[in-house]
């Protein structure tokens, strides 16, 4: 696989006033390969949007290095290419936004044509290309409409057509589905996945919706307070999350926690322990609870269970209550880990147990 986007030690610092300095992005390095759907997740204010804006230099980093398609665009706070060249580079990186950002006083087809203004194409060729793009997103019959006459999902599809007009290699999606209802979100995600498969488009997906990530991403990076705290491929992040925040974001964690809260369990005795197990259903074929009893004689009851699709692969989440003394608990954990199951201990309220 070839690297298409490379960020090295990227910092973005804002000086809001003389005293107040905000480190929006700190020492972030990441490498995105051609054909990836690379998700960057984190709560609002984590610096995700600022980080991706350094890729097309809508935000010039204060420090660090940004390279796209092997070409270094910015180093140590300086832009290394001229204005004209930067405009050309940006046309190779499409971008879509939460608020769609279409031009409201121009028709749908003019919005798409706006992106093609600097090509050498003749007017009729531009029109052809625009209609082709609108067909790609299923909106050819809306060419003469104004954006305000379209639904949110349709507007986002126009924005995608516009972003793809210059045949970019990269598409940056900045919370593009966050303002849409579930049905439209589903449509847009399917469209992105299709574009990734059919055009080999590399997609950088910023979102706080884990469901979107699970559905289409193959790699995930987790951001917190301007820093990248964890990154890896989707399964690794999902099955073996290392950081607390990652656990909160991924896994059935949040659903499991709310289930545990409704159970109102009594304070656990020292002979009880709650474990959250996350595993790839394909790899773990035996029934875990039955195996625990058969092999180790340890009794476990199930408090919560769920299987969901992760980029089309089934992943299971189980929360079990294990009965047994400390030695037995330790044995159970060891056994489960040997089965390729990610184990984390929870307290009776579903919080991580330390």
């Amino acid at each position: 696989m070839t690297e298409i986007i490379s960020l090295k030690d990227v910092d973005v610092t804002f000086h809001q006033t003389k005293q107040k300095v905000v480190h929006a992005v700190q020492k972030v390095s990441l490498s995105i390969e051609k054909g990836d759907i690379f998700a960057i997740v984190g709560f609002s204010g984590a610096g995700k949007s600022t980080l991706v804006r350094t890729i097309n230099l809508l935000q010039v980093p204060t420090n660090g290095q940004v390279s796209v398609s092997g070409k270094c665009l910015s180093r140590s706070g300086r832009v290394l290419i001229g204005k004209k060249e930067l405009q050309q580079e940006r046309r190779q990186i499409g971008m879509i936004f939460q608020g769609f950002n279409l031009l409201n006083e121009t028709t749908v087809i003019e919005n798409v044509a706006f992106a093609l203004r600097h090509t050498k194409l003749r007017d009729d060729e531009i029109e052809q290309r625009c209609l082709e793009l609108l067909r790609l997103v299923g909106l050819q019959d809306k060419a003469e409409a104004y954006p305000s006459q379209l639904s949110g999902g349709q507007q986002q599809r126009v924005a995608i057509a516009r972003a793809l007009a210059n045949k970019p290699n990269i598409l940056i999606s900045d919370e593009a589905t966050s303002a849409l209802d579930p049905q439209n979100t589903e449509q847009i995600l399917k469209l992105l996945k299709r574009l990734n498969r059919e055009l080999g488009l590399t997609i950088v997906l910023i979102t706080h919706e884990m469901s979107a990530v699970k559905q289409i991403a193959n790699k995930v990076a987790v951001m917190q307070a301007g820093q990248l705290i964890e990154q890896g491929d989707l399964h690794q992040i999902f099955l073996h999350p290392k950081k607390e925040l990652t656990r909160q974001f991924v896994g059935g964690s949040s659903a499991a926690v709310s289930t545990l809260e409704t159970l109102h369990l009594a304070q656990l005795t020292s002979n009880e322990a709650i474990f959250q197990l996350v595993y790839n259903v394909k790899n773990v074929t035996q029934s875990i609870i039955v195996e625990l009893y058969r092999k180790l004689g340890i009794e476990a009851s199930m408090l919560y269970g769920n299987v969901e699709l992760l980029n089309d692969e089934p992943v299971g989440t189980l929360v079990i209550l294990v009965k047994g003394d400390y030695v037995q608990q330790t044995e159970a954990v060891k056994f489960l880990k040997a089965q390729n199951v990610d184990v984390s201990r929870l307290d009776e309220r579903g919080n991580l147990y330390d």
Partner: protein
Amino acid sequence: MIEWFVKTFPNVVALGWLGDTGWGTAIFQTLFMTFWSAIFGGFLGIVFGLILVLTKPHGIRANSFWFHFSDQLVSLFRAIPFIILLAFVAPVTQAIVRTQVGIKAALVPLTLGVFPFYARQVQVALESVDPGKIEAAQSLGASLSDIIFTVYLREARSELIRISTVTLISLVGLTAMAGAVGAGGLGNTAISYGYNHFDNDVTLIATLLVLVLVLLIQVIGDQLAKNLNHQKK
């Protein structure tokens, strides 16, 4: 009807239609001053409005020198009362149009009087354009002129027409004031031939004509702003 008019407004009729004191001449002078100062002042206003928005901190061509320069200039001219500006710029007027009286001479103070007012409103109108749209245009590799004409001016056009209407109306007011110092027009008729001669009928008719002009501008402006707006209400 005509007899009644002649009887009721004798001084109005006495002024005649053409000639130095005529109504036709006055109307033409008012329209002439409004039109040309709107063209010059409007151009300057849009240019300064654009400079203010583009060069402001975090603007797409952030430049603190140009921002502060135009900001101060606009504030300065806005602070001078128009009637004083008329006298104050007389030497400049002399240099540009080679005379200090008449409707052409009035264009200089009118333009200088209206442009800062308009520039501020253009600034507000352009700032109402969602910064996300500017960002989207930049992400598409748009040039500065694409962003100015297709994003800023076009997206704000309905708002621009609305403020232009307001500005034109206040400009009609300014031409009346310029009339008072010898530039002619309906303002001059109302004051020199009406008020100063105690001919109140002349003042009344001049006022009505100005009102009709203002009303026309308002109606046309509102309609245009409405027709050119495709934003969500």
